[in-house]
């Protein structure tokens, strides 16, 4: 034992302060309208937010990508501003940067989102450039081939990063092979290599249309006429949406309940990616219990997972669990990495914790989860970018931020019994498990856990 000097620290004289109830708060109020071309316009005036965030959300289920050109929506998103009818790629980049405009775009399973951040005084110029990128992209051959090559290099990078490698294998194992969801959103080497400028022109014309799309503007909008700004920038955008059927829930593979161990020799950590079905935002009985469950099971250092694997065992820097909604259906996912030589024990403990949660939750942990989700909302939605992103993402699911507000109210009706029912409704111990680590050392131990048929593959 080491001897320490006697501690001469000051006495505490104050009792622990009580926490008083939070002030009432509500999600920023939306102003809604629609342009003649069918584009929805939603704005949120948030005083003091001097950088305006604009999010344009265009519904475009990934299933609309041709099977042999998967990744085309992503390549399109990345090349919208790489040359337009009026400007070359380099000119366009310069126009953006001289006004300090950040323009980006990406896709998820439900659609395309184009993001724009700009200081208030440059909003009109920024909207004009956004409009050009969305309405009149030129897809020059040189820029397209550059972005295709860049995506191919990115695929190699993703395979080398254990967490990303695990995620790719997870969807391939979890979803039926006929489902678009079983393959990477941004495409594979074969499908991305096949993408041509002509493909992009056709895909853009068919899918990037104003009808059904929503543009969200959030920030300090005082002295701005947003509808008129939008009419000027996007009023002449035209095109009719192709018929898109009702979104469907991607089917889980018949053999999804198993363990895939990707061999990454010499790994000093082992990555886990574990999942089972979960609901989407439209779930009967409401989304609120699932948000709380994410927090209680795996949302903090004191949540059930990390209370053991991090704070008691020291196996991990942190493992997170949560319900992840898709356009239809969803998943309950747990992921993170552990010290290599703890692989077998950690995986056994982790699955036991996830399974044992079906026995229920204490009133204390339930209340802590409700309070965390509810009382952090004012801070989580305090900035223009988070509000715009929330509204745009929800619009792709056919929802408005009324959903966010109602969900916060619904939290008040959640209790331990609600949580238990919600968890048990989806979590039944039928896990899809992906492990990325040194198979020569740990695959047999994982097999011996007997948590599903084990397949070992190269990473």
């Amino acid at each position, binding site marked *: 034992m080491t001897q320490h000097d006697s501690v001469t620290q000051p006495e505490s004289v104050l009792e622990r302060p009580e926490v008083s109830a939070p002030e009432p708060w509500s999600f920023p109020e939306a102003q809604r309208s629609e342009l003649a071309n069918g584009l929805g316009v939603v704005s949120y005036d948030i005083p003091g937010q001097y950088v305006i965030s604009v999010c344009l959300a265009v519904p475009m289920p990934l299933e609309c990508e041709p099977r042999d050109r998967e990744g085309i929506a992503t390549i399109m998103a990345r090349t919208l501003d790489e040359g337009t009818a009026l400007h070359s790629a380099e000119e366009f980049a*310069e126009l953006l940067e001289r006004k300090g405009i950040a323009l980006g775009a990406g896709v998820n399973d439900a659609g395309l989102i184009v993001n724009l951040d700009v*200081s208030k005084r440059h909003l009109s110029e920024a909207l004009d450039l956004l409009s050009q990128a969305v309405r009149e992209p030129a897809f020059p051959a040189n820029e397209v081939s550059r972005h295709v090559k860049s995506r191919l290099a*990115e695929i190699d990078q993703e395979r080398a990063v254990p967490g990303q490698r695990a995620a790719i294998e997870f969807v391939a194992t979890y979803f039926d092979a006929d489902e678009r969801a079983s393959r990477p959103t941004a495409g594979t080497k074969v499908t991305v290599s096949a993408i041509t400028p002509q493909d992009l022109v056709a895909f853009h014309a068919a899918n990037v249309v104003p009808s059904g799309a929503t543009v969200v503007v959030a920030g300090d909008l005082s002295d701005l006429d947003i509808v008129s700004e939008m009419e000027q920038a996007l009023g002449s955008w035209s095109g009719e949406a192709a018929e898109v059927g009702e979104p469907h829930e991607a089917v889980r593979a018949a053999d999804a309940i198993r363990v895939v161990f990707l061999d990454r020799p010499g790994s000093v950590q082992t990555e886990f990616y574990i999942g089972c079905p979960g609901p989407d935002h439209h779930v009967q009985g409401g989304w609120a219990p699932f948000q709380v469950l994410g927090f209680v099971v795996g949302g903090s250092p004191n949540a059930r997972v990390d209370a053991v694997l991090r704070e008691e065992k*020291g196996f991990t820097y942190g493992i997170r669990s949560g319900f992840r909604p898709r356009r239809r259906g969803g998943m309950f996912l747990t992921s993170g*990495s*552990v010290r290599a030589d703890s692989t077998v024990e950690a995986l056994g403990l982790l699955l036991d914790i996830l399974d044992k949660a079906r026995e229920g939750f204490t009133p204390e942990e339930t209340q802590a989860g409700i309070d965390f989700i509810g009382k952090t909302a004012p*801070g989580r939605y*305090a900035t223009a*970018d988070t509000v715009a992103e929330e509204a745009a993402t929800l619009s792709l699911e056919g929802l408005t931020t009324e959903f966010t507000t109602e969900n916060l109210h619904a939290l008040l009706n959640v209790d331990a019994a609600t949580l238990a029912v919600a968890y048990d409704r989806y979590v039944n111990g039928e896990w899809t498990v992906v492990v990325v680590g040194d198979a020569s050392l740990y695959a047999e131990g994982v097999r011996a856990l007997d948590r599903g048929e084990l397949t070992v593959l190269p990473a």
Partner: protein
Amino acid sequence: MPLDYKIAERTLANGLRVIVSEDHSVPNVTVNLWVNVGSRHEAEGRTGFAHLFEHLMFQGSRNVASGEHFSALMAAGGRLNATTWFDRTNYFETVPRGAMDLALWMEADRHGRLLDAVNQENLDNQRDVVKEEKRQRYDNMPYGNALIDIYAAIFPKGHPYHHPTIGSMADLDAASVQDVHDFFRSHYGPNNTVLALVGDLTPDEGFAAAQLYFGPLPATASARREPVEPLPPLSEPVRDEQIEDVPSDHLYIAFRLPVDDTPEFFASSLALDAIGGLATSRLCQRLVRREQSATSVSAHAMGFVDGISLGFMMIDVAEGFSADTVEAAACEELVRFAEQGPTDIEMESAMAQSERSWLSSLASQEERADHICHFATLQGDSGYINTYLDRLAEVTPAQVQQAAAKWLMPQSRAVVAYLKQDGDTQ
């Protein structure tokens, strides 16, 4: 562009500097503390200790149980964490106004009465957690140790920035409970700390609460040493090649830069933007768009206070191109920029992007509080957030050119190259 975020400052008798920024837009308060200790203060053989210590600040103090800092504040609607960097350590939470007193009470307890709760068990546990953090973020990732290699290549052994904040496994293993006691006594205390309170409160309320909870703590931290002697730019290139199982060749081209918060640092930072940081930077135009010998180029300037700063560019070399050829092209552009100086459009773009990103970073109370503490702690100026853009705007093209000619020349570069094992270079 004039900014007018409200700033009020007062120093308590024990030396704690308290800064209140009143903003009633959201019914929250951000509590943010910066302690003027970072990995630059670590002794040889104890690298990584400032960060390990930061973890122990969550394992309880005299009146707070282990883990309770997270659990009690999160259950009150708090979002919180802490980070450690070369120059400093920060602790922060954003809570509903009604939980501000609890947050301050808990912060005062761990910043003043930590050692009662430190023991071998929680040291061992957090040492394990930190080692997993290191493995997750550095050791098990492709290129994960690139920045660590840069620090070692560009700053001399024994220099405060030679070793990374995460430290080494051997030094983490060597850390003892006695080290925790010694570190706390040397570096923690109100006289080495800045507290910012940003949000739904008045300055008087903030000062009163700070006095109530922190006022009783004695000024225990030892005096800070003077900054170490400034370093000049490297006089000849340094090179560190790592042949590894990585998906593509990466080049990290690093430079020493002038100390932070000086016109010379701002000028060198703007130069780095124009050379490699902007989407329209010279290297992006040439290597990524035209020659397509790189899939991406980025550049960053990290301002430090101990006599020197760091700038670096990262180039992801495209399949089929040689890292040497790409590096030679980058060096040509460095020379050309130093000869020509920035164009008007480059100056305009670098300034415009700096302005938007600065305003974005001030958009949330959390980040605003962090900036306030940063500049109050390291530069002495609590009102810096309102004047930074004006100071940046004063930098002239001639200063940018001079900074590039002095600091960003090929002979002053340190290159860390991560090269693919099978080496398909031409």
